[in-house]
């Protein structure tokens, strides 16, 4: 058999990218393991625990809100052709283009004190930057469902809403959930907009910055490691669950 040089070459180049992503992860976790005492102390720091809880709660709330508003929008974008549809689609993608610090400024200018330093402010910042993942995933999920299936369900006696809940939604579910997980992940990693809108209540990602600014690299490392490991494990578990349900 002849050797496949092209694939080999591409794989070699691609490996650099993977190493580049994994290396800092491995280094920071590895270094922290040699500083076990500091890690333990951080894990018992009430400030850190509260910040972690805040991060998890706000990003989960963001995910649920994005599902509630994003799924119907995704369905409309997949099924209907209307005037201004490309405009609507462009609007959905706008948050990806805007620098996150600017998002924070815009939201603050628009809603001012009502969202300043509150849970609402954190969630609004997260929702703005992360909702497109759910909307676009829902749209793609519904696009993959043959409209004929809904038609047949209708002739079998299902109302439009019933056909949506019994046919389209279950079939698009794994795609929607993948999008929701991305939304969750994007939300918990958001810093820029939150920094401007809501320095308090303290979230873990803000706390990392604060420790770095006030006490330096060594102090911010343990909480960074905890945050990374926590979000990564949740991300991986959710992805695994969705993947499993898809193959069922």
């Amino acid at each position, binding site marked *: 058999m002849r050797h496949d040089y092209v694939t080999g070459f591409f794989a070699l180049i691609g490996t650099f990218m993977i190493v580049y992503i994994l290396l800092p992860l491995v280094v920071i976790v590895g270094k922290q393991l040699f500083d076990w005492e500091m890690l333990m102390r951080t894990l018992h720091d009430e400030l850190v625990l509260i910040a972690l809880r805040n991060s998890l709660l706000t990003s989960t709330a963001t995910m649920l809100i994005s599902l509630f508003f994003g799924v119907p929008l995704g369905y409309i974008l997949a099924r209907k052709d209307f005037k201004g549809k490309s405009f609507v689609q462009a609007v959905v993608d706008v948050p990806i283009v805007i620098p996150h610090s600017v998002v924070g400024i815009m939201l603050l200018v628009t809603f001012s004190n009502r969202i300043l330093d509150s849970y609402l402010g954190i969630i609004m910042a997260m929702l703005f930057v992360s909702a497109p993942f759910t909307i676009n995933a829902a749209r793609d999920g519904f696009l993959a469902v043959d409209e004929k299936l809904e038609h047949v369900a*209708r*002739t079998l*006696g299902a109302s439009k809403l019933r056909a949506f809940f019994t046919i389209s939604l279950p*079939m698009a579910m794994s795609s929607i959930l993948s999008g929701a997980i991305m939304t969750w992940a994007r939300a918990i990693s958001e810093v820029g907009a939150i920094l401007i809108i809501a320095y308090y209540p303290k979230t873990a990602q803000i706390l990392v910055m604060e420790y770095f600014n006030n006490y330096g690299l060594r102090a911010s490392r343990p909480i960074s490691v905890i945050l990374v490991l926590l979000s990564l494990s949740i991300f991986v578990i959710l992805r695994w669950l969705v993947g499993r349900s898809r193959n069922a």
Partner: protein
Amino acid sequence: MLRVENINKNWGEFKLQDITFEVKNREYLIILGPSGAGKTLLLELIAGIFIPDSGRIFMNGNDITFLPPEKRKLAYIPQNYALFPHMKVYDNIAYGLKLKKMPKNEIDKKVKEIGEILGISHLLPRKPRTLSGGEAQRVAIARALILEPKLLLLDEPFANLDIQTRSKLIQEMKHWHKELNFTALHVTHSFEEAVSLGDRVGVMLDGKLIQTGEVREVFGRPKNEEVARFLGFENIVEGIGEGKVLKTNSILIELPVEVKGKVRIGIRPEDIIISNEPIKSSARNEFKAKVLAVEDLGSLVRLTLDIGGIELRAFITRSSLLEMEINEEKEVYLSFKATAIHIF
């Protein structure tokens, strides 16, 4: 039971123009047309998936033109069967009954009953993607028939199947139609399905329903050249099969295989041999016939012949016509081989 009146619909590249027809109670009506004729769009209008631009649709006298699909009490089987891939076969079939909130044990009984009739009992626990084309089609039919719909709409139901599965399903469909007493509107491009299953047949070309009538009549007397060309011009004879013989009112036709019961057979005009005297040949069927009409088609001539009340058409060359001195009213002999017969 279903009456479609002056339906018009403009839908992208498909256009329905002034469609009017009727499906009678318990009838099996076939609409025959090439792909792109607008057959699917017509079914979708009747099913309520789209609303016509103008015209009316009546079901048992009630205007259903603007009724949503779920209120029409008819079943629609699209060309790709549209089984719900996330549900098991059992749940696919039970879907309509579950919506009706029928008790679980009653649903169970009904699903098993229809599964038995359609020969798919062993498939009930499977997922649709594991089914063959023929199996999927049976499941789609079961899912529709379990609701005892007033009308069954079938879009090219046998088009994606291999020849063997297809002819088997056509035969079984005949049987189910008799046993389960439903009314069917079936659209297809297949000549064979039309002749095998249709009580009546309509021919649809370019969004227009050109001709509707008894199968023999439509095939025997195409309304215009377009219809004739599309149908491929066959001679269709109806009769009762008794072993290797087909009995009609007046003549006996020898068949290549044994058949039983009411059947239709087809003979292509080019397979019919005309002679002035009885001839000794391998052709098993020979009849005395009277020439009813002579049509000039250029180098070929089309004869319409009568054998005991049955009209058949045959092609001969112009030189044969002159040589044999054939004209209207002349008596000739007509023969064809048993193997040239197509049994539907």
